[in-house]
């Protein structure tokens, strides 16, 4: 069902006709997820209500997409109308939008069901121009005729004139028919006198055409016909209109009309309006045109989709095509009520974008399609068709630098495989540049992919570490809270610390130590660096100031360092050697008995470790160990005396 639908709308600039991703992706994603969810649970109940609600939302979704696929043909409305301009030159519509409207009409718009044939007429009026390929269409014939219009002296003598009029009438382009009829020579003032009857007939036909009853809610500005909402009213009006036409057909005025072309042309139009199958067939080019003319003049009372497929088959037989246009193939699929064919045509003709987005429409009305598209298929990895198509589209998006950030929106709506694909995608992104990295991490944050983001940070940390940017490396590993790796790099870091730390070079280390920051941040054994720096500072102060307080403070930080398990063994001796002045502080012993014992034990441990393999000897003078031992022993003696 339609709950928790993620509405995804991506607009492309310069959408290529093949429907694939254009390089120049433009903007706008709309994610309206869960909006449906929350209000659905709020309404909580009546099935019909839910149904309406669902339908409204599908329509809203469809409207959003249509808007993004391009605005409707700009209704070009010049102040001074050119009487010879029959067709409005609007923007060329895209077949993608044509296909979308078609899908909407058949699957989502429940309002249009009662006046469905008229919707189809409107659709063809907008998109007939797309269908002309190797075969002419009414639109292309009109365009051709418009080109020759200026050069024609006596318009009504040209058989083409009557031909395009009957074609336009057959597919219901009434305003064009009336406009063309009024270009008839008999309207000219100098001819009106001797062609009165002829002019009368032309005008009568034009008026009858403009009065054609149509079963629809409304007509757009400038379109002709009389609208009827209710079927009984429409039927009554239709009968009356037909009567008038029949009356005109058998009228006596035809006899004094001497202009043969006019007489035959008008009679032809009357036959079209009376629903003459043969003439309709000659007036139209494509089967869809013939199909629509059937609805207009032969089966005007058709409601809904009854018998549509059979009629279409009949029309195709009468107007066979060697290579049908993709829109026509789509129509056949739709009226054949074959969801698989529709999907296949969408994907073949309009690309993965269309398929991924059209599924929402396909499932809106039909439970059968809903089952088909949402059933999990074992042969495609246990995912549904819906998910499959979303995945396919997401993959298209991921193939380009600019569009890959949109892919997560689709991937996260894929229940089964989307998230793992997204993870894979995120791992594949380069980690060199912090800015790009942060953008990826933002995606992780949005979709609650904490484990992925911590892995990405680890990758970045190791990358920067290896490239000599130790600070950045430590930062990212800290962000990832990877104590294991931090401990690992700590050993490498201590090697350089052991060699280079002196009071001058501490300036360089200062920044990194600041970064390691407070104790709340995980730093692994790097925490030692922080304490080491503090100890060095207090030792410096003790030596400078020579006050007891400063010395005691330094001794305390020495003890905390020596007690701390994260202090590497190799620093024990250098630490103690540095603190010789503290151990033999003249005023009083700074360390008590137990503290001194602890240090002596450490010293013992150290000398035992020195015989083991892998011991890193410090580069202190050889007598360092002895002098520390001596100082500790002296201190122990003084401390014992003090404590007694």
């Amino acid at each position, binding site marked *: 069902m339609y709950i928790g639908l993620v509405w995804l709308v991506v607009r492309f600039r310069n959408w290529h006709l093949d429907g694939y991703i254009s390089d120049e992706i433009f903007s706008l994603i709309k994610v309206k997820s869960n909006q449906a969810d929350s209000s659905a649970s709020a309404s909580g109940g009546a099935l019909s209500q839910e149904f309406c609600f669902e339908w409204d939302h599908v329509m809203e979704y469809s409207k959003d997409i249509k808007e993004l696929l391009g605005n409707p043909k700009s209704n070009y409305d010049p102040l001074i109308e050119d009487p010879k301009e029959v067709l409005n030159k609007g923007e060329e519509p895209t077949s993608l939008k044509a296909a979308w409207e078609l899908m909407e009409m058949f699957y989502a718009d429940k309002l249009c069901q009662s006046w469905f044939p008229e919707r189809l007429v409107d659709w063809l009026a907008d998109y007939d121009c797309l269908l002309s390929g190797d075969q002419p269409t009414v639109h292309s014939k009109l365009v051709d005729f418009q080109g020759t219009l200026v050069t024609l002296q006596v318009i009504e003598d040209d058989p083409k004139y009557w031909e395009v009029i009957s074609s336009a009438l057959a597919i219901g382009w009434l305003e064009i028919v009336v406009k063309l009829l009024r270009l008839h020579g008999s309207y000219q003032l100098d001819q009106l006198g001797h062609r009165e009857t002829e002019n009368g007939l032309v005008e009568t036909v034009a008026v009858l055409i403009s009065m054609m009853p149509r079963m629809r809610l409304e007509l757009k500005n400038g379109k002709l016909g009389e609208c009827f909402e209710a079927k009984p009213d429409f039927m009554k009006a239709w009968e009356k209109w037909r009567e008038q036409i029949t009356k005109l057909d058998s009228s006596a005025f035809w006899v004094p009309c001497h202009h043969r072309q006019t007489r035959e042309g008008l009679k032809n139009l009357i036959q079209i309006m009376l629903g003459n199958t043969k003439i309709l067939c000659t007036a139209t080019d494509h089967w869809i045109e013939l199909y629509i003319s059937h609805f207009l003049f032969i089966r005007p009372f058709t409601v809904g989709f009854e018998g549509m497929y059979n009629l279409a088959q009949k029309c195709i037989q009468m107007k066979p095509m060697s290579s049908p246009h993709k829109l026509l193939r789509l129509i056949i699929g739709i009226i054949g009520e074959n969801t698989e064919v529709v999907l296949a045509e969408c994907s073949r003709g309009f690309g993965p974008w269309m398929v991924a987005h059209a599924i929402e429409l396909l499932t809106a009305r039909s439970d059968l399609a809903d089952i088909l598209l949402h059933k999990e298929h074992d042969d495609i990895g246990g995912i549904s068709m819906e998910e499959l198509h979303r995945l396919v589209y997401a993959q298209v998006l991921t193939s380009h*630098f600019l569009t890959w950030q949109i892919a997560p929106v689709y991937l996260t709506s894929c229940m089964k495989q989307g998230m793992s694909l997204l993870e894979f995608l995120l791992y594949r992104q380069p980690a060199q540049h912090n800015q790009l990295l*942060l953008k990826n991490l933002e995606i992780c944050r949005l979709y609650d992919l904490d484990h992925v983001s911590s892995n990405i940070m680890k990758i970045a940390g190791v990358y920067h570490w290896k490239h000599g940017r*130790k600070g950045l490396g430590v*930062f990212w590993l800290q962000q990832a809270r990877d104590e294991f790796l931090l401990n690992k790099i700590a050993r490498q870091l201590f090697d350089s610390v052991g060699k280079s730390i002196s009071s001058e070079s501490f300036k*360089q280390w200062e*920044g990194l130590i600041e*970064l390691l920051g407070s104790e*709340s941040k*995980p730093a692994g054994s790097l925490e030692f660096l922080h304490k080491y720096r503090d100890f060095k500072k207090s030792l410096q102060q003790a030596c400078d100031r020579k006050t007891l307080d400063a010395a005691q403070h330094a001794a305390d930080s020495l003890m905390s360092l020596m007690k701390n398990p994260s202090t590497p063994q190799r620093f024990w001796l250098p630490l103690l050697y540095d603190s010789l002045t503290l151990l033999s502080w003249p005023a009083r012993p700074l360390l008590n008995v137990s503290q001194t014992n602890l240090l002596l034990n450490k010293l013992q441990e150290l000398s035992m470790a020195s015989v083991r393999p892998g011991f890193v000897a410090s580069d202190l003078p050889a007598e360092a160990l002895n002098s520390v031992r001596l100082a500790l022993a002296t201190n122990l003696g003084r401390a014992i005396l003090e404590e007694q």
Partner: protein
Amino acid sequence: MAITNLPKNPEIHRIPQPKFIDAIRWLSSPSPFQKSFITSLYDSDYHTPSLEIHSLDPSKTLTTALFSWTPPSRISSLKSTPSLFAASTFLGSLHIFKTPEEMSVLGNDMSDLGSKTSDMEPVVSVVGREFHVGSVGGVDLMEGGSECVTVGEDGRVNLVVERGDFRRVFDENGLVSYSAVKWASPAEFVTGGCGFGLQWWDLRQSSAAVAQFKGNWDHGTTSGIIHSIDINPSRKHTCLAGGSSGTVFAWDLRRPQEPIILSSIGSSDTMTHPLSESEVWEVQYDCYTNSLNSNISSSRILPAMICSEDGILAVIGQGEEPTELLAEPCAINSFDIDNQNPSDVICSLEWESIVILSRP
């Protein structure tokens, strides 16, 4: 959102671009009707970066680029002053150009321009491993001066003088990486980097930073990177910084351990929720909003404009509700307030477009 300062909504123009925009800056122009700006672009199809100067007429339509130049790699940072602009690259080079006005091209004879793109050449180029290894994180040109400071991921702080020589101020040997820099005075500048760290440097004193700020005010376990710093010439002791997790704060050198937080996820400030939860890519003091409320006391932080990864362009003031100017579906990667006419703001969007805002 409180819109007390802006009675009317700003005029917004969107100009789609064929390439990704890394950074964007206004350039000063002799005429208010003929504005120009510089963008650093990246063509992701051909992996080619470029630097282009465009001019903008009052109808806000974009002509072909007036000038263009192909840098050796993608631009990492871009700054402009009335006479010069500087661009640093991912490969660690720096290129300084004279502005078109300085070259006395704009304003004199515009008729030749606009139809075709001319090449421009940097007046100074510094390249090589001696200078920076890896990406230059930030660059700043001194207003009216000729010195340019660059900081990099490699932890180097360099000072480039106009002749093209450079002096190493400090080298961290990669122990610290810098991502932003801003001059405070002719002898002082502030750098920013990982862990919300800020460093104050004084060229007259020692070679190392004279003051450090460590950003562990939130006592949280996560930290972030400073992306942008701004300093107002009239209050050079206070610097404004923006970075990860929607963090925007001011650091007053006189109270170095007490940052004034304007926006942050972890802050227990009066604000109920932060303006943004993701990266704040750029911060700048907004002298336009400042001029509207002239009664801002000298102890208050001046209003600041920010742009963020989650698509927000907003003005925030100390203890005030922020004013959102744009809320886009994609990231706003950089913006610039026009110095000559501070009501105009230009910004670049993730999805290849430029937005120009003219505030009423």
